């Protein structure tokens, strides 16, 4: 089981902030997105993190991971 999290404008666009997914094959961050959002391509500039560290979209995901998708950050 992996946990997916969405933030800010991406959360609003998708209408949900979190969901869980059972994966049975090898998946990258990007292929997980495509699995759960088949009709919505990952917006350009989206940042991706696994277990709260930034990773590229090609990063391999494993069960127990928390995978996050969010727009460029604007703190400070």
């Amino acid at each position, binding site marked *: 089981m992996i946990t997916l999290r969405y933030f*800010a404008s991406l959360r609003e666009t998708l209408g949900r902030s979190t969901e869980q997914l059972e994966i049975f094959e090898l998946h990258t961050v990007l292929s997980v997105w495509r699995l759960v959002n088949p009709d919505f391509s990952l917006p350009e500039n989206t940042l991706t993190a696994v277990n*709260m560290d930034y990773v590229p979209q090609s990063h391999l995901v494993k069960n127990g991971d928390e995978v996050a998708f969010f727009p460029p950050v*604007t703190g*400070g």
Partner: protein
Amino acid sequence: MTVKICDTAFDPFVEIQNFQNQLTLEGKFGATSVFIGTMRDFNNGDDVQAMTLEHYDGMTQKQLTQIIATAKIKWQILDCLIVHRVGKILPNEPIVLVAVWSAHRDEAFEACRYLMEELKENAPFWKLETLATNETRWVSKHINQEIAHDK
């Protein structure tokens, strides 16, 4: 080295004083550099009445801790304090505080600037502005860069 995320208004000067009071560095630090970011009532040509700051709880602290660890490698920092607001913020309320204590001013100035720039680049916060017209909009990176160029 302390990172604080506040969901209510904070006084940066009280935070600095309280933090310095509990330091055991008497006679060791000769320089303290401070940056305070405060909410404006305008942005990108529009009047802004409020802002809501969202963050990724856990990742924010993790990223800021990593940024501090890198700064400690680059400069001889004795201690530092980062405080950042989340939730609903009104104009004139502080958003962020970065304070660095070191023996000499170069380390303090440079590390403070580095921490602030890295925070803006990597800490997962997002600003949702409520304009005077009650319209809401997410602040984009692009708008931030334009403002940076204007300075």
